[in-house]
């Protein structure tokens, strides 16, 4: 609306006075996108292209590598290392399930029951991050050490007999077994499960619980029919944030495992840094990426949380 104090109106109806700001504004979003795009280009697209080209090269370290479109590398890598792929998926899945089982009650507690302790518990969840990943994993080496209190207790309770029978541990050792690796993975990725779970639980309107109770749902039914379905976005993002890095992890298998618990991350690491077979390492990385992408897509489709996220 024109106000009385404004300057005299423009002479022509298509006064140019209003146009320049609009035209200038049109490009603003793209300028703002530029730093991000540049970042993605340098740190995502270029390495990917470089790695893709490495994966189809042949040659040796002495003579140098050339792009020969040798796609057989992929097949060879897959047929040689499929057990490690399978193991990675299994360990990551086991750790993810453990994280969910441990993390859900805690996230629920923080979101609905913690009251004034909420912030303190949140800090306790995040606190381990102040120490390096490596140190934390090494600490587990001490915790699970042979003849240590944990192993001793498990032995006395005959838990190790059961886990050894299942093939998770070996004799009276926990270290250097699948159980140790899965424990390490679970421990290291637990906060990545708790935080998204907490966020989506905390967003649930408390009146929905009251409404469910009012409509004859017992507390357990309320959880099953209202709380859990509404926390699905958190469950999905939590499991993804746990599963994806766990599947590619090599630190836990390296420090807590043995040669029998090598995951695909360990293979890639060895190929890159010890064998120096870059094409195989690059191909393995791509296969891992594709496999995870495939599983994640399938998972998100199945969980059907599109309209809840």
């Amino acid at each position, binding site marked *: 609306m024109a106000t009385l104090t404004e300057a005299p109106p423009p002479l022509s109806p298509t006064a140019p006075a209003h146009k320049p700001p609009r035209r200038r504004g049109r490009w603003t979003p793209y300028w703002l996108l530029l730093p991000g795009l540049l970042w993605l280009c340098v740190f995502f697209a270029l390495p990917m292209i470089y790695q893709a080209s490495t994966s189809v090269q042949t040659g040796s370290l002495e003579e140098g590598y050339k792009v020969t479109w040798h796609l057989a590398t992929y097949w060879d890598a897959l047929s040689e290392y499929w057990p490690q792929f399978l193991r990675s998926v299994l360990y990551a899945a086991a750790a993810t399930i453990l994280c969910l089982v441990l993390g859900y009650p805690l996230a629920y507690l923080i979101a609905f029951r913690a009251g004034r302790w909420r912030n303190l518990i949140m800090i306790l969840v995040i606190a381990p991050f102040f120490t390096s990943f490596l140190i934390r994993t090494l600490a587990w080496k001490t915790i699970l050490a042979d003849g240590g209190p944990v192993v001793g207790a498990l032995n006395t309770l005959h838990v190790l007999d059961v886990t050894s029978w299942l093939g998770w541990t070996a004799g009276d050792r926990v270290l250097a077994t699948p159980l140790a690796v899965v424990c390490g993975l679970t421990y290291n990725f637990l906060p990545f499960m708790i935080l998204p779970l907490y966020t989506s639980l905390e967003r649930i309107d408390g009146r*929905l619980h009251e409404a469910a109770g009012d*409509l*004859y749902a017992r507390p357990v039914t309320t959880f099953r029919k*209202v709380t859990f379905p509404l926390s699905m976005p958190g469950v999905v993002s939590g499991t993804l944030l746990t599963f994806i890095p766990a599947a590619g992890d090599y630190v836990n298998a390296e420090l807590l495992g043995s040669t029998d618990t090598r995951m695909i991350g360990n293979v890639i690491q060895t190929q890159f840094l010890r064998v120096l077979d870059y094409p195989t390492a690059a191909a393995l990385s791509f296969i891992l990426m594709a496999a995870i992408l495939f599983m994640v897509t399938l998972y998100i489709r199945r969980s059907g949380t599109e309209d809840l996220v």
Partner: protein
Amino acid sequence: MKTTNSGSGDVRLTGISKTYGSFTAVQPLDLTVPQGSFFALLGASGCGKTTTLRMIAGLEEPSSGTVHLGDQDVTALPPYKRPVNTVFQSYALFPHLDIFENVAFGLRRRGIKSVKKQVEEMLELVQLGEQARKKPHQLSGGQQQRVAVARALINKPGVLLLDEPLGALDLKLRRQMQLELKRIQTEVGITFVHVTHDQEEAMTMADTVAVMNAGRVEQLGSPTDLYENPKTTFVANFLGTSNLIEAEVDTKNGDDIVLKAGGGKLVLPESRCSAPTTTGGKVLVGIRPEKISLTHADDAGEIPEGRNRITGRIANSSFIGVSTQYVIDSTVCPEFEVYAQNVDRDARLAPGAEVVLHWSPAHTFGLDAAQDIDAGIQEEAAL
């Protein structure tokens, strides 16, 4: 449910109270809501009306007292075992379920398998048959409100509790939904307990209104009764507008009390006075603005005998179509409000004119002068 079939389905609250630490939300309270009635709990926010409702629903545990539904003592029962359903403020519809499943929720929890027919009938009742497969967020506020009503009513509760169900709607939709809810209540015949801060809403919808203030029921009665015979200044000011005049009891004349106010005398039927009337005692004399007639001072002689009179000067007048609202400056009451129907307008009644206000003693009511004369005014203005 059991209670609806067992003859008396009254809601009986006996000595019920709720305290949070040192704060008392609801003072010990006795209340009976007759079966099949449309009962409103009216009051400003924080007066304890919602807490009272939540104690009936079982969502809040009373600090003392008991809740009976019919003959059954439900005080210790959790909400999911009470034959009561609630329409929540801002509805609390389940966002992950479609409208059909929202409405079917209560039936399914009670193990009823074939819900289709009932849900469809209920959606017809609230005129949402077409929307059955939509999610709550795809509906308008008014439609969501009707889903909330359907979701509660389908369980055929002994009592339906409504917690400010229309608060989130705009004025026009609110009027429409008031009539709609009234229609549904008449149709299904279930007891409705309706919590609201909107006095007009309470008066249009309810058979009985309980006006609550500071955790107590100030007065309980039919809307007409509350409006015509307020017993406290809070009720007088909260329900509509009242002019309150400080007066002193002079003499008693048969069934009437004669009072001194300013220089003049006012007459008040003793039956309409809720205050003690010892000679010399103070009484607040109340009169509703629309009961007062205005006559220009020059025509004062034409006013019939036996009417209460006060003189004053018009300070302000606003024309609002069907009526004109005057604010009159008078020695006995600083801002006297008068609403006059626009039938025969006297052109002399403009700001500055000297006037005589007069009304029938039968419309006068008397209140205890020990109360705050302004109670209930700010609360209403704040909304």
